[in-house]
């Protein structure tokens, strides 16, 4: 699957305050972008714009799959997104959450795939527990399972290590490595360990775009 993400002159203004402007970059297959910057520089805002959760004040985000432009309303089929502020349904179990997400996405719910993902994030033993009983780290692991459910060509991670223990972090790093082989990756972080996996970096403090 050949994918390309193009960002053209993105600008965002919140309540009259300019968060960033003139952001341009391009991301292609088997590449990873780190978005860095101090607190409040707009890392989460930028990844939300990339994922289609927020509209930019100016500029546009283009996404191409095998050379064909994908409409913003249909991009959810190709994107996986993990962030600490993303919430799951507390009143459902881990497996029910994944089954619901799969069905709402319109993909065929494969029990073996769900079991594989739950084992991968070390939640298989707790698959029938309600999410409200989960710790914040366990919820974060379940978010990874839900983001990978449809095998997305583009994975967007905001603070990928948030709430995770060392075992969870190593699982995330494995996921990052595999995603780089199979598609594209965008990581919003300030952690040097996360940045080392990326071959491009955009520093929102300086609004500059450099390639390593």
């Amino acid at each position, binding site marked *: 699957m050949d994918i390309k993400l193009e960002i053209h002159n993105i600008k965002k203004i919140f309540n009259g305050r300019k968060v960033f402007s003139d952001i341009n970059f391009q991301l292609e297959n088997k590449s990873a972008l780190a978005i860095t910057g101090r607190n409040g520089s707009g890392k989460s805002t930028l990844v939300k714009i990339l994922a289609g959760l927020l509209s930019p004040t100016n500029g546009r985000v283009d996404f191409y799959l095998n050379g064909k432009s994908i409409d913003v309303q249909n991009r*959810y089929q190709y994107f996986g997104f993990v962030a600490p502020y993303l*919430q799951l349904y507390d009143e459902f179990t881990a497996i029910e959450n994944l089954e619901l*997400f799969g*069905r*709402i996405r*319109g993909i065929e719910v494969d029990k073996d795939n769900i079991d594989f993902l739950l084992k991968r994030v070390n939640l298989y033993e707790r698959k029938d527990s309600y999410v409200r009983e989960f710790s914040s780290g366990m919820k974060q692991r379940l978010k990874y399972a839900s983001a990978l459910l449809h095998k997305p060509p583009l994975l967007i991670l905001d603070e990928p290590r948030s709430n995770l223990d060392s075992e969870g972090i190593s699982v995330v790093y494995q996921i990052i490595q595999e995603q780089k082989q199979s598609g594209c990756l965008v990581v919003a972080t300030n952690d040097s360990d996360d940045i080392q996996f990326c071959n491009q970096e955009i520093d929102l403090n300086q609004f500059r775009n450099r390639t390593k």
Partner: protein
Amino acid sequence: MNKIFNINSALTIFIKDFRSELRTRYALNALIMFVITTLAIILFAVANETPSIEISAGILWIVIFFSAMSGMARTFVSEEERGTVMTLHLIAKPSTIFFGKLLFNLILLFLMNIFTVVLYIILIPSFIVQNASIFILTVVLGTIGLSAASTIIAAIIAKSNTKGTLYPVLSFPILLPLLMIVIKSTKSALEGVEFAKAMGDFQVMIAYFVVITAVSYLLFDYVWKD
């Protein structure tokens, strides 16, 4: 060509909301308690007097309107309060979410209206339906119109800070044409007029539903996103 919305996904959103409602009772308890307390107050107020046909028809739809206002907003407000709006946004098209939520509100309002109408007929002796087919069709079309309008208004107010008070205030002018026509049609059912004479009212109710649903579909993406 892209589909307007995915029917299976919308049905899954409806099933999710229904199962969630059974487990959390976000809206159901509020709706049932509102109907019971309102009808109890009406009984005390009416006492031994016999309200006219116009007043009986009006009171029924006042109970339905305010009961709907107490529970219908929960579909979107609960997603907003729990922070799951973003999650939903990441897994489905906005139109799919809208139609899933509309279906949930429709079923919930149908159940509530059946409960309300049955209680109302039992408790208010002067409320005697002379033409059942007009009355049933009025309740069905009124419910459909009410759920369509209340779904998009719920999506709008879920983003505001004053959700509770804003919902009935914003709903009233939008629902006023529908309320006027369903009260008129209910009065016709109580008076026992011929079915053919009520056809104009039903056409207005159907037109109201079509217009509100079409506008909601066009606007929902903007309401839902930022």
